[in-house]
């Protein structure tokens, strides 16, 4: 049975203290360079954070579409009910506890007492229910939360959520990669909901000039303190600046225009690593990274044919792509799950690079289809994606597969995926959450199942995974999912796309302080997100 109550046992306290000690000494796996974090954080100061994009649509739940930049601003202004820790567990955050019934179809969320939104109103069960209502109306998050039947305030600080099927992994859906931000009722009901940011988070919105900067100042009444009793956050002010061009973000850090920045671009990460003696680099540890892959349309010729998909998979040299496009900084993937996610298998049976076998399969396909085997490689207009698509085209050509390139802007690209009007998309998805958090991407008939595969075996497995609570059985189920992906070759898994946050040498604490109530340390850069309340500036 899943028990995510936060009443700390002695064992939990000891584990929490141990983790806190490890964190303080900078020994946690994945914190590549944070030696200077060992000195005690000093409250005060301000930083400028270079983000990869502006969140022009704002933060209003029904319409917001948050990518990493919006999620990071969200981490400043808002909190989530749950957060993931470094052990791949969801632990309560704004919630004090989240407890299921015996059949996992009714969950009681108890909120922490005494927390206030930035406008001074209290965090209550009613406010949380209003958030659920708003998110369930959202087209994207609404699809993710479809399994929720009812949400009811059953006490001043208690919300009961019922689900249509048993749902042991519901806590992951109280986070949704940092997108399930709890917003004040005053924001949710405002006509300028997208820009009137009112949360319970460590920083309060001071000003937002679109395309220029979003300035947030310290929330002096924030509900968390560090282990020494110092009020969090440490910083007085944080300014977010959108700098769309990846190389310019690195330049801005070097030139002093920003104090920290994020990127998942392999070549920029390599460039940052060359500068690591002058910077603090925090890198996402191996284990729970998002996967870069080539998403194939299994509902349209030629890729509705398993042998055609195998030919594509075997024609693509993923090692070469990783070396040439990422300077080898990322790891080649063979499945949708990184090494710390249940369901990971070192060798799930995914077809390996073999031009000879690919050519043979491609020839057989051509012989059966009038001599044609044409695919379209569709990608966004980012220069790195263009270069990657060109390399894949060349590799496919060596196996006799004719590929043409199609460049889209972000909207047209997503539309191609939603509408199923594509053959291969250069895609990135599936951060290292629990595999059930991927359910709506693979569910047969879901608009978000972009590959359009209709596979009763796969559907049976993810349905079982959703309702199963036994850890050992879940492991078996998701390993079977992994093997099924490999045998049916619905996607060509390329590499794990890992995030790096680079900061000036005197900016420390990107990994964040330990989670409250012995919840462990925060998951580091899962989907690129990291807490902001532990950042401080060494004078």
């Amino acid at each position, binding site marked *: 049975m899943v028990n995510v109550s936060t009443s700390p046992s002695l064992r939990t306290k000891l584990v929490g203290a141990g983790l806190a000690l490890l964190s303080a000494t900078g020994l946690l796996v994945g914190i590549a360079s944070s030696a200077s974090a060992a000195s005690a954080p000093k409250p005060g100061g301000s930083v400028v954070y*270079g983000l990869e994009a*502006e969140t*022009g*649509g*704002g933060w*209003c739940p029904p*319409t917001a579409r948050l990518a990493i930049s919006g999620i990071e601003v969200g981490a400043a202004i808002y909190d989530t009910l749950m957060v993931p820790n470094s052990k791949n567990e969801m632990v309560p955050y704004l919630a004090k506890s989240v407890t299921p019934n015996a059949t996992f179809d009714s969950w009681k969320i108890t909120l922490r007492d005494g927390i206030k939104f930035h406008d001074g109103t209290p965090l209550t069960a009613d406010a949380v229910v209003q958030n659920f209502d708003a998110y369930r109306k959202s*087209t*994207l998050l609404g*699809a993710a939360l479809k399994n929720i039947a009812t949400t009811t305030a059953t006490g001043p600080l208690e919300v009961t959520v019922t689900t249509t099927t048993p749902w042991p992994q519901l806590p992951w859906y109280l986070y949704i990669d940092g997108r399930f931000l709890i917003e004040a009722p005053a924001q949710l009901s405002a*006509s*300028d*909901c*997208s*820009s009137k940011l009112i949360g319970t988070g460590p920083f309060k919105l001071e000003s937002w*000039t*679109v*395309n*220029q900067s979003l300035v947030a100042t310290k929330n002096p009444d924030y509900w968390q303190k560090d282990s020494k009793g110092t009020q969090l956050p440490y910083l007085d002010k944080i300014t977010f*600046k*959108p*700098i*769309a*061009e990846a*190389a*310019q973000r690195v*330049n*801005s850090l*070097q*030139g*002093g*225009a*920003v104090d920290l920045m994020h990127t998942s671009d392999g070549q920029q990460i390599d460039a940052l690593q060359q500068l690591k003696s002058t910077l603090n680099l925090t890198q996402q540890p191996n284990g729970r990274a998002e996967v870069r892959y080539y998403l194939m349309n299994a509902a349209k010729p030629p890729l509705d044919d398993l042998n055609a998909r195998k030919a594509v998979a075997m024609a693509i040299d993923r090692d070469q792509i990783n070396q040439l496009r990422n300077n080898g900084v990322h790891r080649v993937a063979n499945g949708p799950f990184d090494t710390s996610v249940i369901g990971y298998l070192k060798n799930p049976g995914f077809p390996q690079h073999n031009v000879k076998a690919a050519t043979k399969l491609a020839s057989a396909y051509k012989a059966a289809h009038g001599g044609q085997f044409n695919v379209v490689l569709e990608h966004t207009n980012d220069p790195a994606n263009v270069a990657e698509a060109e390399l894949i085209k060349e590799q496919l050509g060596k196996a006799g597969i004719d590929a043409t390139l199609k460049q889209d*802007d*972000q*909207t*047209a690209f*997503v*539309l191609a995926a*939603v509408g199923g009007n594509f053959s291969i998309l250069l895609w990135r998805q599936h951060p290292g959450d629990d595999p059930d958090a991927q359910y709506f991407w693979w569910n047969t008939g879901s*608009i*978000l199942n972009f590959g359009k595969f209709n596979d009763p075996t796969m559907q049976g497995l993810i349905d079982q995974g959703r309702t199963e609570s036994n850890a050992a059985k879940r492991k078996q189920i998701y390993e079977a999912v992994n093997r099924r992906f490999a045998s049916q070759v619905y996607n060509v898994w390329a590499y794990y796309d890992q995030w790096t946050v680079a900061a000036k040498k005197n900016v420390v604490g990107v990994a964040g302080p330990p989670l409250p109530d012995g919840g462990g340390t925060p998951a580091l850069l899962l989907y690129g997100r990291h807490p902001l309340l532990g950042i401080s500036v060494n004078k």
Partner: protein
Amino acid sequence: MGTIARRLAQLVVVVILSTLFAFALLRLFPGDAADAVIPYGTAAQKAKFRAETGLDKPFFEQYATWLGNLVQGDLGKDYQSNTPVSDKVGAALPVSLQLMLYAQLIALVVAIPLGVFTAYRVGTKADRAVNTGAFALLALPSFVLALALAYWVGVKWKPDLPFLGQIPVTGYEPGWLEPVFGQSAGNIGKHFGTMLLPAISLAAGLIAVYMRLLRSDMIATLQENYITMARAKGLSDKRILWRHALRPSSLTLLTVAGLNFGTLIGGAVAVEVIFGIPGIGTLIYQAINARQIVELQSYIAIIAIGYVLINFSIDALYVVLDPRIRRARA
């Protein structure tokens, strides 16, 4: 008075034609605003969105509604954030206007002396060298120069200049025009510092064009009889060049400089994005990516209106610059 009425009529025609053309063109984009705002929405949700925003109406009805709103100062709303487009324009327009002004000033300040000098020294090694340099600048796209300047000046050199301070790689500080648009001014030194590299990036290509134009016109002017007369009277070369030849030679330059105000807005898109300048170029870039059709139309209308008004002003300047035109109009 007749000229003003004629120009206003032209303005109306230009705005209607350009926006109608843009209106039609934007509807050729694959997908529509509903797809962009709610890509994962159901057909019913998208239909509801189209009905709410008027996107389900016939083409000319949509256009007439939008134009009617524009005349009343209503530029529409951003579909996603519900922000009035006029608010966005109010914030971005002073930024772009200042950037364009600085780029034009830098271009003219450099191009005019070079144009005069090369016309005076036509056919010499110096003339050929300057011309070759001008061609090189012309061939260099502004975004390439922008990236190079950002790296070499902002990262490698990092100059800390008096008044301007350290030249940043990206970012923007409000300047002297923002208060006119009801916003607060920033530190003026910092403002010029943030605008220096973007303005140079945009000015480089213009320098070459302006210099070449002025050179050609000056060479022709220097063949005129009144110049020969001035020489015969013993006026110095400096006085002939700057007082008697430059003014009548600058009409083409002025016309092209005016036309370039429109071009600069389009050309500034890449430069604004690279340097993180929150101007109209950045808004256009984002509106295209987000299929914000009403927003884009409003930007196109603003550019068209600005384009006509600036050229109207330049037309009026002809009279000041060339006495022959003044006499002809009289």
